[in-house]
């Protein structure tokens, strides 16, 4: 009797409490998944999460080494950021640069993605798409450097302009703010084309046809049908560009020279030239906080768009 009761009890439990059953399955799932997941997450912990925590701790120290007797906890490094207007000015400058570069990438990249997704077909589209994103996977340092040959006095643009124009012009954009912008747009444009293309490609051509057959002009169709549907791609691309540009330091150094002092280059200096690591850590953490706040604020918009 007992032997018969147990299985029926068992099925009873499965039927009456599906929640508990799925909870047990989920627990079981974690137990099975853990050995496969552990190595990857252990590595990320060691190389990303612990370092980020260490950076927060370091930003609260008075001096370089935590083992030194004189070192104690302080908020002085954060106070430095708020008392010296230089840092806020540079952060603002970096944020503006991020906005400008992102905006230019949208203006250039969106039409390119549109042409790619809606005019080119088949193999030609695949080939050109590959050509657009290929530079992205080559060395960004080298790509930035290549602009120095174009923008400097006596460079290609200077030589070409003087060969065409009847009068002499001196064309030297090297070590200027526009040079930094050009280099950064060149570096990050493929991101924008990629994300816009992915969302544009997903738009059914029938929708565009329907709008047109109902009498919408090309521009109205673009504005009322295509643009809203492509928004997730534009926003994703913008986030992917804005974040690294705000923290850029190599591009401004190579193309901006002395005019290229930005928030990122000041952080770099704290670690490689001035050796004030606690201040550098505080400045890095402030940048991280600003970026996170911007992401959190835009997250609902992103989710709604997606």
């Amino acid at each position, binding site marked *: 009797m007992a032997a018969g009761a147990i299985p029926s009890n068992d099925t009873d439990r499965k039927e009456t409490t599906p929640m508990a059953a799925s909870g047990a399955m989920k627990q079981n*799932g974690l137990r099975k998944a853990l050995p496969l997941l552990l190595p*990857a997450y252990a590595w990320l912990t060691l190389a990303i999460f612990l370092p980020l925590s260490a950076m927060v701790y370091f930003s609260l120290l008075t001096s370089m080494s935590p083992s030194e007797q004189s070192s104690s906890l302080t908020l002085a490094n954060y106070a430095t950021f708020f008392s010296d207007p230089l840092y806020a000015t540079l952060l603002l400058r970096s944020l503006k640069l991020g906005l400008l570069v992102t905006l230019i990438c949208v203006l250039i990249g969106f039409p390119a993605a549109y042409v790619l997704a809606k005019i080119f077909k088949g193999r030609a589209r695949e080939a050109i798409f590959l*050509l657009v994103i290929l530079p992205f996977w080559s060395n960004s340092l080298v790509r930035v450097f290549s602009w120095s040959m*174009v923008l400097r006095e006596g460079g290609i643009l200077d030589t070409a302009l003087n060969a065409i124009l009847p009068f002499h012009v001196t064309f030297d954009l090297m070590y200027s703010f526009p040079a930094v912008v050009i280099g950064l747009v060149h570096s990050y444009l493929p991101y924008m084309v990629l994300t816009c*293309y992915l969302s544009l490609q997903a738009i059914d051509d029938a929708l565009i046809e329907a709008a047109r057959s109902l009498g919408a002009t090309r521009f109205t169709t673009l504005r009322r049908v295509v643009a809203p549907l492509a928004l997730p791609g534009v926003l994703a691309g913008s986030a992917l560009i804005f974040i690294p540009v705000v923290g850029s330091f190599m591009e401004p150094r190579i193309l901006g020279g002395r005019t290229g002092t930005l928030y990122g280059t000041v952080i770099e200096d704290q670690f490689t030239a001035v050796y004030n690591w606690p201040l550098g850590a505080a400045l890095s953490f402030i940048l991280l906080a600003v970026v996170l706040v911007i992401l959190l604020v835009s997250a609902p918009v992103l989710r709604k768009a997606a």
Partner: protein
Amino acid sequence: MIRAPAFLSGLGRFYIGLVLAFLYLPLVIMAAMSFNVSPFYQLPFEGTTEWYVALAQNDGLIDATINSLEIAVLTTIIATALGTAASLALFRYDFAGKRILQALLFPPIAIPWLISGTAMLIFFFGTGIGRGLHAILLGHVALALPYVIIVVSARLATFSKDLEDAAASLGATGWQTTRKVTLPCIAPGIVAGGLFAFAVSFDQFVVSYFLATPGQTTLPVEIYAAIRKGFTPEINAVSTIIIVFSMSLMLVVSRFFRFGGDQ
């Protein structure tokens, strides 16, 4: 089928041509200048291979190149192994907190490298792990892991769980199923993920820059140091080689992994 008027589609093609010119012209010019006689990039153009010969004798750059390749290969092996294992776990099993675990993959991509790099510098220095090639490897694997997991997971999404169940019902053990059924099916994804990992590591500059020491450095860090000392045509030569190398690599990747093209 919507057909844009001929002049509009012509305009579109012209525009794409301009964008491609913007993307490639500086690289073409740099490559051309690496074959130019004048060390100050003066025109008219006069061909030479002397900068490539000089490059072959530049021990600093050659050592850095070897380091870069070694680290990229190790990063590829480690990140592909760890990433594929994690992707399989995320594909097969369901558990509480899975979404959070998946979200935790993104910080290496979403946080500016400047911040990751300086944070690693502080942590590795403070804990005695120290700087150098081993530290660079630690960092590169972490940066490459999310890419591997994203690419392999994308491939797994096209893989049917029924195949694993079929293998299991025919008596295959878990490991046999993985080795004989799952892994062969997702092999293109694993290869693409591995090549991504290689590219991420080989091109990585920012994180390497903060973790490198004078004797233990990678090619991009060495190039950056050389650029800041002053431009030389040797930099053009080595840059041209890198560009050709990484672009060829990604052409190979594109054979395994379609970048959002037509399916």
